[in-house]
């Protein structure tokens, strides 16, 4: 394997591993192309820790040489020489765990550190672990993923009358980031779509992402229109949007940028739908933070959670200063606005920001969870994620290259998906009975999105996935999560379907820090987990009794 060149020392004995919530243990450390393997020495109760190198966000190393040079000249045995110098590697993981390795022997320590540094951030997608992951109990699936746009369309009979499945993008030529098939108004032909696509950034022309069965209203998604400084217009784009609200008096556009930002975007060729050309569309601007600002927010929050000064004022001001909860509030309230337009006001909505691959996905996903009971089951939720984030393309590879600990210069990293999971967690906390899945699923997804055995979150688009044969050569996480054993574990024992919309409260007191994630490796969270376990047991016990 080509990884061998990065591994100078593959095995080290007598290593001490320190990890949160467990006593330190002594054993053997082994490094492979994708993993760090630690196995305990204890014969009776042997423990193994298998860590994906990809999970490591940052490492810090320190070495010290206690005996100086004397060891090299003496005839001391190998082991004595090792005890002479030693090193410590602190590994900060993308799942926010911090591990420490005490390694005897300075050289070995440096070798290991070097291997971790190199192997944890390899750029080559096809060399990543999902392409090598071959569990014995799982064969590569015939069908990758839970569904496809075609299947989704064919199951939605309500759509047939006014909507059609267009394959205009079958070779990714119209929009490289869209899947080959998309749902559009029936009255719009492929040529119109092609022209409309030219008027939208990255070719992301308006497509249907949600159909509200109760009143036939829809949520559309796109990128910004390319008006530019000369206020260009595009008849085809106008026609396309007109067709969306055929038979209704108006539609709403939710722009995830502030009015000012949207206006500024014109200078760089972008812009927004102007009132004069889209006279039946009413625009709302809701500024949502994205990109670098969001990543920095995450970094500050994680830093605050690790603060050990034990000072209340300091904690509250750091929490405030991170702005993470403000982002959560903003996302939930923008999603609330979207739901209000569709569910209460009864009109269709188009959502976009600039690229339409981050915040637009975030709020359309949340809105569907709030409105549609079908999205709140475990299959429904995973299906929703697949449609909105995998097929409609969130650039996972770029956004999740690093997490909160990395010292690397920020590029395209942004924890939009993590923000989504946090918002979903807030929903779950406010409506503990309405979602079919539990916090554990959200935690699992939050881990997998940064480092995974599965291919689901690889690459930045469907096109890239096809080029690398991800669908043929890797396993799909969503399918794995729906296997009976896993499904039991991740389901919500209290779940009971409700047809009602679950309007979240966005009052700051109703929003809480997601302790399960951000303080995952503290003792406190264990007590909360015990409580969840207790709830599960009670419900199971009750089910048994009720049956007998």
């Amino acid at each position: 394997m080509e990884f061998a060149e990065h591994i100078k020392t593959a095995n080290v004995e007598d290593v001490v591993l320190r990890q949160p919530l467990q006593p330190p243990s002594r054993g053997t450390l082994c490094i492979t192309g994708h993993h760090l393997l630690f196995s305990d020495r204890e014969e009776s109760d042997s423990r193994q820790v298998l860590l994906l190198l990809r999970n490591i966000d940052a490492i810090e190393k320190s070495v010290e040489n206690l005996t100086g040079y004397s060891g090299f000249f003496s005839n001391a045995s190998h082991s004595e020489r090792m005890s002479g110098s030693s090193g410590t590697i602190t590994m900060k993981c993308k799942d926010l765990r911090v591990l420490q390795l005490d390694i005897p022997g300075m050289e070995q320590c440096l070798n290991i550190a070097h291997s971790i540094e190199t192997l944890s951030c390899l750029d080559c997608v096809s060399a990543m672990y999902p392409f090598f992951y071959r569990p014995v109990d799982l064969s590569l699936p015939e069908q990758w993923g839970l569904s496809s746009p075609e299947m989704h369309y064919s199951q939605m009979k309500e759509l047939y009358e006014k909507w059609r499945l267009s394959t205009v993008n079958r070779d990714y030529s119209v929009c490289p980031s869209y899947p080959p098939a998309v749902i559009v108004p029936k009255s719009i032909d492929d040529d119109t779509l092609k022209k409309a696509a030219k008027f939208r950034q990255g070719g992301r022309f308006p497509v249907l992402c949600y159909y509200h069965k109760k009143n036939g209203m829809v949520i559309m998604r796109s990128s910004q229109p390319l008006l530019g400084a000369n206020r260009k217009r595009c008849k085809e784009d106008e026609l396309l949007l007109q067709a969306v609200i055929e038979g209704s008096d108006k539609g709403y556009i939710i722009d995830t940028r502030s009015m000012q930002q949207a206006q500024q975007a014109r200078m760089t060729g972008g812009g927004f739908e102007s009132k004069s050309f889209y006279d039946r569309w009413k625009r709302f601007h809701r500024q949502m933070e994205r990109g670098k600002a969001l990543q920095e927010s995450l970094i500050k929050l994680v830093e605050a959670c690790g603060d050990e000064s034990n000072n209340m004022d300091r904690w509250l001001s750091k929490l405030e200063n991170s702005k993470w909860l403000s982002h959560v509030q903003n996302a939930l309230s923008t999603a609330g606005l979207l739901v209000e337009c569709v569910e209460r006001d009864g009109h269709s909505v188009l959502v976009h920001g600039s690229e339409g691959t981050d915040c637009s996905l975030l709020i359309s996903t949340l809105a569907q969870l709030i409105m549609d009971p079908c999205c709140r089951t475990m299959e429904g939720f995973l299906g929703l994620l697949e449609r909105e984030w995998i097929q409609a393309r969130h650039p996972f590879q770029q956004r999740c290259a690093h997490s909160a600990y990395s010292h690397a210069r920020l590029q395209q990293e942004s924890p939009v998906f993590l923000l989504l999971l946090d918002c979903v967690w807030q929903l779950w906390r406010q409506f503990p009975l309405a979602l079919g899945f539990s916090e554990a699923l959200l935690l699992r997804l939050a881990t997998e999105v940064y480092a995974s055995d599965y291919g689901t979150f690889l690459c930045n688009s469907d096109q890239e996935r096809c080029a690398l044969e991800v669908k043929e050569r890797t396993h799909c996480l969503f399918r794995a999560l729906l296997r009976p054993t896993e499904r039991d574990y991740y389901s919500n024992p209290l779940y009971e379907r409700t047809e009602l919309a679950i309007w979240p409260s966005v009052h700051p007191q109703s929003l809480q820090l997601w302790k399960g994630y951000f303080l995952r490796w503290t003792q406190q969270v264990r007590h909360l987990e015990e409580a969840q376990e207790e709830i599960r047991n009670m419900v199971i016990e009750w089910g048994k009794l009720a049956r007998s």
Partner: protein
Amino acid sequence: MEHIRTPKVENVRLLDRSSGQRKASVGTLYLSATHAIFVENNPETRKETWVLHSMVSSVERPPTTSSGGQLILRCKDFQIFQIFIPQERDCLDVHASLARLSRPEKYSELYCLSFNPNVNKEEREESWNFIDLAADYKRMGVPNNLWVATAANSEYRVCDTYPSELFVPKSATPAIIVGSSRFRSRGRFPALSYFHQDTLAAVCRCSQPLSGFSGRCQEDEMMLQALMKSNPGSDYIYVVDTRPKLNAMANRAAGKGYENEDHYTNIKLQFIGIENIHVMRSSQQKIVDVGEMRSPSVTDFLWGLENSGWLKHIKAILDAGVFVARAVADEGVSVLVHCSDGWDRTAQACSVASILLDPYYRTIRGLMVLIQRDWVSFGHKFSHRYAHLDRDPKEVSPVIDQFLECVWQLSEQFPCAFEFNERFLIAIHAHVYSCQYGTFLGNSQKERRDMRLHERTHSVWPQLWKDRGKYTNPLYKAEQSQSQGVLRPNTSPYCFKMWKGLYNHAEKSTPPRQSPADFLSAVREESQQLEEELTNHQERIAELTGKPITWEKIEVPRRRTSCLPQRHSGPDPPTLYREPIASLAQDSSHTLSSAPANQKTHTKEPALSLPLGPHGQLKSHDPDDLSTCSDLESGVADLSSRSSSGGDVGKDPDLE
């Protein structure tokens, strides 16, 4: 009755602001000697709102407007009522009456002395014996060969704010006790609060020594020596001064202060830094203001939280308790706790320590015992701190509020460790302020005896015990690990949050959120029933067949039964999501009133006041929604009767 000028005013509008009500209901306001009562005009509901005069902390009268006068009633349980009175004269009269009635000058004006539930004399006497402190001391193994009862304070001769029954180290002679008490502020000499059988270490309490800069007292030094000797496992004791060191030093100038480590052998002095009652009073006011903010941004809210300092104070108290509990349980060292007079911060630190040390105090009855011991019996000044009478406002301070909040914060951290739920703590909080029962009246055991409260009032504990069904935490299991042994909480700042249930009625009630606890209570109840049924059936089968049958337990999917309460909430008004859109303005004004929050507090909205009420509105949107919604009301209404109990504590048909 002489203070009531206008006993009845019609066409009054009432807005229960704290419950998130946004549209006032029309009705009649009655003033009785003990309550302000509002009865809705709506013939279908005739909903009544009772506000006990002694629960009212302030009555404001904003300037009169064209539509009449207005009063704002702020209650001690943080409820807020807004009353609109059409005639200005009526408004003035009501204001004057309420202002006077909410500030009773004599104990005899208090409700507990006229409150007469339907029980006979024996039952009342029985009610006072419900909590037996002697039995609790016995439970912890006292008296024993280390700790003995002392008669020194019988008839309150040595210390009039202490109870007559106290436990002291065996070697502490009456002379030592009396001598020590002369050297302690208000005579509050060191006495036993809690004895930890596992380590034989004890938690003791007293007031500050009258040491000044150089004073010393041989008996007091012997007293502390005796405390140390009463714990065979250790050769020193901790003296925990719960004040900030600077405050303690300032007290020396007034001839008080703290123990000089040079004079006392074998003590380790520790300052904790809980602020005084004045700081706490203004801090609570700030956190109440935070709770009242209408739609703050996250930044405003967190800034307000930080600025109030409230959570910092709660953390300091919990830290004090943790220090004491660790010393006793982990180091096996006895602790003597004091502050200035030893009845505020000392009570907080000792009772938090007991909660941490002993699982018994985490049960419903145990918490009652604990409050009875460390607060009621040891002379916490309830009547002064909770403004039962119109006295010095500087004496008022939320001391027991903070203790109850510490318990709540712990219960959030250990969801399975407490037998009671949040409602129990809030109920105790309301009773402390309301004076419906005599338990919390007066400032000491002696005062209560002198007022003959046991003959003239009732005890609150049996009442709370009777209602324990609704105060039970379904997740509690006595045999579980969290419920046993010493509780070791994490007191990192991130473990604390604002107690929404107490300080933010408005937010609490906006959406009738789904409550897993209520659901699980129902599950637990049903499980028990089913289990009984199962046993019955097994017995019958056994009878019939002549041989016992063992049931095979099979994993089965859950089944929903109709007897469970409806658990889902209806839609929540999304008023925060946006400014009203012009075309929707009409619509969103309905959303305000059509909020199910209203359906929660008012089981049925009066049709008259809401011509375009929630039902019509919802129907026009979605008939399915409505059917589910109306179904929900029953379950939801159930909840409201509990949660609104705060203001209605005094509600009693026998009253008039």
